[in-house]
């Protein structure tokens, strides 16, 4: 959504486009509006916080300066199976195949941690240990039937603590319905 307008300021104001919801480079939510004024030309770009485009504009263009060895090894990383590159991952494009998970192993973990998409305790675990817990292919699992009761009991304790007897009664009714008729479910009131 780069919008160039060569008019004077007043007209540019009028033409101000609706603020886009997504980064123009990727699909992440917008957090930075970058406005560049060169002479009478105004360029507006909306970007997400970790946009490489933003980095390029703020700190010059590392990609266009071949002399810079900075991060060279990393930016060249690509998946041999499907051609997904590290650059494309950084802008939020989904990975292309199962092999990507091996190729980008550490990068993916770092990204997930940064976006708080995995429980924080995982950052402290060792690299080789599986992060996934729970079922593996072909394994089926029975849900503990008391889960719902546990939730109701916990809520009941809370309501009793603050002496909300009306809600406590409502919860008790549900517990009763579940324990007397475990097959039947009785939601709501």
């Amino acid at each position: 959504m780069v919008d160039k307008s060569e008019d004077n300021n007043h007209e540019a104001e009028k033409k101000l486009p609706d603020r886009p919801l997504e980064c123009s480079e990727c699909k992440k939510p917008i957090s930075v509006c970058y406005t560049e004024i060169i002479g009478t030309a105004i360029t507006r770009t909306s970007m997400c916080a970790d946009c490489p485009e933003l980095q390029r504009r703020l700190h010059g263009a590392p990609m266009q300066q071949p002399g810079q060895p900075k991060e060279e090894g990393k930016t060249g990383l690509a998946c041999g199976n499907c051609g997904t590159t590290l650059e494309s991952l950084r802008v939020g494009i989904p990975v292309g195949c199962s092999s990507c998970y091996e190729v980008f192993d550490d990068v993916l973990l770092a990204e997930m941690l940064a976006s708080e998409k995995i429980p924080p305790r995982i950052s402290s675990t060792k690299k080789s240990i599986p992060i996934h817990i729970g079922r593996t292919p072909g394994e089926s699992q029975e849900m503990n039937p008391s889960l719902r009761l546990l939730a109701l009991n916990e809520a009941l304790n809370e309501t009793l603590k603050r002496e909300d007897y009306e809600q406590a009664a409502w919860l008790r009714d549900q517990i009763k319905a579940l324990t007397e008729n475990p097959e039947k479910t009785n939601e709501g009131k």
Partner: protein
Amino acid sequence: MKANDNLNPILSQKKPWSDNANPIWLASTVTLLRNIEKYKFPAKLSSDRKKQIIALVSKDLLEMEGIEHPFLVKGEELGFLEKEFLIEHFLSTHNYNQAHVGEGFILDKTGEFLVTLNMRDHIHLQLIDCKGELENTWSRLVNIETGLGKRLNYSFTPKFGFLTSDPTQCGTGLIVAVYLQVPGLVHSGQIDEMLEKHLDDTLDISGIQGNPTEIIGDVIVVHNNYTLGITEENIISTLRNFTTKMMVEENSARSKIKRDDNAEFKDKVSRAFGILTHSYKIEAVEALNALSLLKLGAEADWIKGIDNKQLNELFFNCRRAHLLRHYSQEKINQEEIPHKRAEYIHTALKHLKLMI
């Protein structure tokens, strides 16, 4: 738009929500994301291979026991209306409008089961539940998933679990979302406080269209934030705990509003009543917001002539594709939709009486 087709299997699906009398729990969806071993993910997959995936999965699923009369619909066979209908029906936050050659859907007769093929991942298995039975719904879905897993191999590594095209969804590949309608908390201004009190970082909140800042119709969508490093049972029990507490808070808020007999709330409900019964044109968002206030009013006995079942059904039926389906015998222009919606709501609420 081929709309005047009563036999259309998608538009004539059963409506699992039409029988939901729950005043708060509108619906919940349970989704498992899976990919097939040795195939690249859909974004990098050639259309020939995509067709192979559709053939592979549908062959197995269509024969599987435990699914009621499943049928396959290919992306290119669907019109705009049907795709939008699916989005509304299954409360999807994905956009199916781009589904075309190489993408597909498998549905069944219950109207609760949806498989999307080659949309972001090879397989999204989804069940919608309108009875508040998260645990059973999950078990049903796992049965289907393991059944399918006997016939084909899922992409899996011990470290990252089940692999998905979006790395933030790998691991269990399980997404559970609960749709709670909480007008009491929203209109009494307690919602933020309650979310802060009960919400931890394993859960996240958004609105019905996936936007976290826009709450439409006082519906909050609670879904798990983590799919990796957490068990499925854990995900379900955290959601069950949270929703139970939120329902208690919402019930308290509604009883308090009823007891206080507050003029502000009465005004809000009367206005909502006025908008719904007297507008000539009404947009979906406005209708959904007003319908939510009617729930509050019905609970406080300020309005008569409607129950939660009807209000929950209206919530689905006044959205665009459902509305167009209702008027499928007529030809309706885009501009006429708000008027038709108003007309539809008037009919549905014709026995409604304001008691204040």
